[in-house]
C-alpha cells in the first residue's frame, strides 16, 4: 500500500478531507497572515504583552538591587529561577519530539501541529535561557561560561555539568532554530507568491531565499530535513539528560539518582505536549483552524499525554521504592517523610495529583475528545510539572543531612512576577508568530493529501483560474462525528 494512503484496517482517515483542494489548504493557512487579526488575537496579545511588561519591570528591579530581591536564601540557593529554567526547557522538548522523532517514525499526523510545536520549542528555550542568565548575580560576567579568552586567563571547567548545560541548551536552541527555519522556507515562498503588498513580498521574499520549488532543490532539502530530524532526536534526549545531571551528579538526597536522565526526558515530553495542547486549543479557536487541526490530532496528543503520564508516574514510584530498598536513612527521610509530610507537602500533592491522577481520565474516549476537558487538563499538567521541578529542587535543598542547616524558602512578589512574566513573553512571541508566519506547514499538509499521489488522475481537480473561497463555502467539518462544528467553541 502506498504510504500516503490511510490504513483502513487501523481506522485511519485522510489527514485532510479527500475532497479538499490544494488551493484551499494554501488559502486556509495563509489567510491568517493576510487578513486582519481577529479580536481574540488582540485580546490575547494585549494580555500577554502586559505580562511581558511585568517581566521587564521585575528583571530591571533585579538588576538594580541584586538577587536578594528573590526569596532564595540559605540553604535554598536554587529556587524558582532554576525551577522555571527546567520547566521551560522541558516544555520545549515536545516540539522537537513532534518535529523530529515523529518525522522519523513517519507519523504523518504530525504535519498539522509540527510547525506550531517547533515554534513553541524556540520560544520556550528563549524563556528558559533567561533564568540561568539572570540567576548568576552578575549577569555582565555571563561570558565566563563561554570558552573565550578573558582577563583572568582562565578557561571554563569542562568537567562541570553546569557547563555541559550551557553547551547542551545553546546547541539545542541553535539547532531548533535552524530546523524551524529550514521547514519554513517553502511556506515563506508561498506567502511571497501570494502577497499583493510589495513590502510583504520583499520581506517574505528575502527570507524565502528565492525558493522556486525546484525538484533538484527538494531533493537536497528533504535530505537536509531528514538529517536534521536524525540529529535532533538524540539531541533532544541529551538536553534534558544533561539538565538532570546538574542535580544527579551532586550528593544531596533527592538529587543523587541514576534514574534522573530518562525520568527528566519523559517529564519534559509530558509537559511539552500539555503546553502544545494549551496553545493549540487557543489558536484553533481564535483562528478557526478546525479543518486543519482535527479532533483526531488532539485525541492522539491526549494518548501521548496518558503514556508520558504513566512513565512519569513510574519514575515517581521507582524513587519511592529505591529510597526504601537502598536502606539509606537520608534517602528514606527525604522521599518517605519530607516530600509527602514535610512543610511543602502541598507541592508534592499538586505534583502527584496533576501528573499522575488527572491524566488517567484519558483512558476514556469521551474525555479524550472533549475540548473543555483537554484545555483544563493541559493547564493542570503544566502546573503539576512546574511543581515537580519545585519539589525536586526546593524540597531536596531545604532539608539535607544536618537538621541544624535546615531552612524554608518563601517566594517574593518579584519571584512571582518574573515567572508569570516569562509566560507573558512566551505568549507574546507566540502570538506574533501566529500572526505573521504560517503556523501550519502548508507544504507538508499538501504532501499528505490524496492529490500528492502521483498515480492519481486529475479529473476531479479544481478550476484553472484562481478562485476566491468565501468563508461560508468552506467544506463542512471533517470526518463524521470526529469534529466539533465550527463556532461551537
Amino acid at each position, binding site marked *: 500500500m502506498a504510504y500516503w494512503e490511510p490504513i483502513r484496517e487501523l481506522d485511519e482517515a485522510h489527514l485532510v478531507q479527500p475532497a479538499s483542494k490544494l488551493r484551499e489548504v494554501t488559502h486556509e493557512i495563509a489567510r491568517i497572515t493576510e487578513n486582519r487579526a481577529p479580536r481574540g488575537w488582540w485580546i490575547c496579545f494585549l494580555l500577554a504583552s502586559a505580562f511581558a511588561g511585568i517581566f521587564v519591570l521585575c528583571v530591571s528591579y533585579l538588576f538594580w538591587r541584586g538577587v536578594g530581591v528573590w526569596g532564595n536564601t540559605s540553604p535554598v540557593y536554587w529556587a524558582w529561577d532554576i525551577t522555571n529554567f527546567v520547566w521551560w526547557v522541558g516544555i520545549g522538548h515536545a516540539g522537537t519530539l513532534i518535529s523530529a522523532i515523529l518525522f522519523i517514525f513517519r507519523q504523518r499526523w504530525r504535519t498539522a501541529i509540527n510547525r506550531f510545536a517547533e515554534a513553541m520549542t524556540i520560544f520556550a528555550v528563549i524563556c528558559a535561557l533567561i533564568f540561568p542568565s539572570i540567576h548568576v548575580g552578575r549577569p555582565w560576567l555571563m561570558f565566563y561560561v563561554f570558552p573565550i579568552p578573558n582577563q583572568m586567563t582562565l578557561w571554563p571547567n569542562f568537567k562541570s555539568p553546569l557547563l555541559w548545560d550551557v553547551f547542551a541548551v545553546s546547541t539545542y536552541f*541553535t539547532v531548533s532554530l535552524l530546523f524551524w527555519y529550514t521547514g519554513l522556507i517553502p511556506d515563506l*515562498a508561498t506567502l511571497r507568491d501570494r502577497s499583493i503588498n510589495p513590502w510583504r513580498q520583499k520581506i517574505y521574499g528575502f527570507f524565502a531565499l528565492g525558493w*522556486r520549488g525546484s*525538484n533538484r532543490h527538494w531533493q537536497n532539502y528533504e535530505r537536509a530535513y531528514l538529517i536534521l530530524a536524525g540529529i535532533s532526536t538524540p539531541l533532544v534526549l541529551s538536553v534534558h539528560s544533561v539538565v538532570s545531571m546538574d542535580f544527579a551528579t551532586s550528593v544531596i538526597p533527592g538529587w543523587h539518582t541514576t534514574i534522573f536522565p530518562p525520568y527528566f526526558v519523559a517529564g519534559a515530553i509530558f509537559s511539552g505536549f500539555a503546553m502544545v495542547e494549551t496553545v493549540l486549543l487557543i489558536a484553533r479557536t481564535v483562528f478557526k483552524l478546525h479543518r486543519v487541526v482535527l479532533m483526531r490530532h488532539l485525541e492522539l496528543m491526549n494518548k501521548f499525554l496518558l503514556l508520558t503520564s504513566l512513565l512519569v508516574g513510574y519514575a515517581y514510584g521507582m524513587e519511592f521504592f529505591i529510597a526504601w530498598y537502598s536502606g539509606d536513612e537520608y534517602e528514606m527521610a527525604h522521599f518517605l517523610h519530607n516530600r509527602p509530610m514535610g512543610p511543602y507537602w502541598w507541592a508534592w500533592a499538586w505534583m502527584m495529583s496533576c501528573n499522575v491522577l488527572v491524566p488517567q481520565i484519558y483512558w476514556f474516549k469521551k474525555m479524550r475528545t472533549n475540548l473543555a476537558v483537554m484545555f483544563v487538563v493541559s493547564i493542570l499538567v503544566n502546573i503539576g510539572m512546574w511543581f515537580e521541578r519545585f519539589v525536586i529542587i526546593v524540597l531536596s535543598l531545604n532539608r539535607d543531612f544536618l537538621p541544624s542547616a535546615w531552612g524554608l524558602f518563601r517566594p517574593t512578589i518579584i519571584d512571582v512576577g518574573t515567572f508569570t512574566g516569562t509566560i507573558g513573553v512566551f505568549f507574546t512571541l507566540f502570538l506574533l508568530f501566529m500572526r505573521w508566519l504560517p503556523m501550519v506547514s502548508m507544504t507538508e499538509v499538501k504532501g499528505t493529501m490524496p492529490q*500528492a499521489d502521483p498515480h*492519481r488522475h486529475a479529473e476531479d481537480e479544481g478550476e484553472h483560474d484562481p478562485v476566491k473561497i468565501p468563508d461560508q463555502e468552506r467544506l463542512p467539518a471533517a470526518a463524521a462525528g470526529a469534529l466539533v462544528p465550527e463556532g461551537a467553541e
Partner: protein
Amino acid sequence: MEARPTSRRRTPSIILAEYKSAHDVLHAAEKVRDAGYVRWDTHTPFPVHGMDRAMGLRDSRLGWIVIVFALTGLTGAFAMMHWMNGVDYPTVVGDKPPGAPQTLPSMVPILFELTILLSAFGAVLGMFHLNRLPRHHHPVFESDRFRLASDDRFFISIEADDPKFDVDKTPALLAGAHAANVEVIEEDVS
C-alpha cells in the same frame, strides 16, 4: 507582464510548462528525461514522490558534507577541551590528572553537543550550497503564472542553453505531455 522596450533584441531563456496534477508532471518529467534534456527542472508545491527517479537524478550528496562537519565538530571539541583544561591551564577536578585519558568520560556531553551543532550547520548550509540558494532572481520568476508553483500547480522548466533545446520542438514535447499551458520566457540580449 509589463511591456518592455522593443528596441532591445530578445531571446528565449527558459520554457515553462504548467501541469494540473502531480500525476501529469511526473509523466511529463519522464518524457523530458527520455528525450535527453539535461538543463531542466520541475517546480512543485511539495516534493512529489518518485520525481527523483522520473527526472533521473542521482542521490543527494548532502550526507558527505554533513559527515565532514560532524567530524570537525567532534575533533574540534576534543582539541578545545584537551588544550584548555589539560595543556594551557591544567586543572585537576575529581582527582583526574589533567590531559589524562581518565578525563575523557567527562568530555562526552560536550563532544556530543558540538558534533550535533556542527552537523546541523553542515546540513543547512550544505543544502543552501548544493541548491545555490539564496538566489532571488531567476528567469522562472518572470512568469506571472509561476506564482502558483508554491500553491497548487506543477511546472517543468527547460533552459534555452540545454544542448537539446529547440524553439519549436521543446514546447511541443511539453505540450504533448498534457501541459495545461506552455510559455516561453525571453530575456534581453545585451
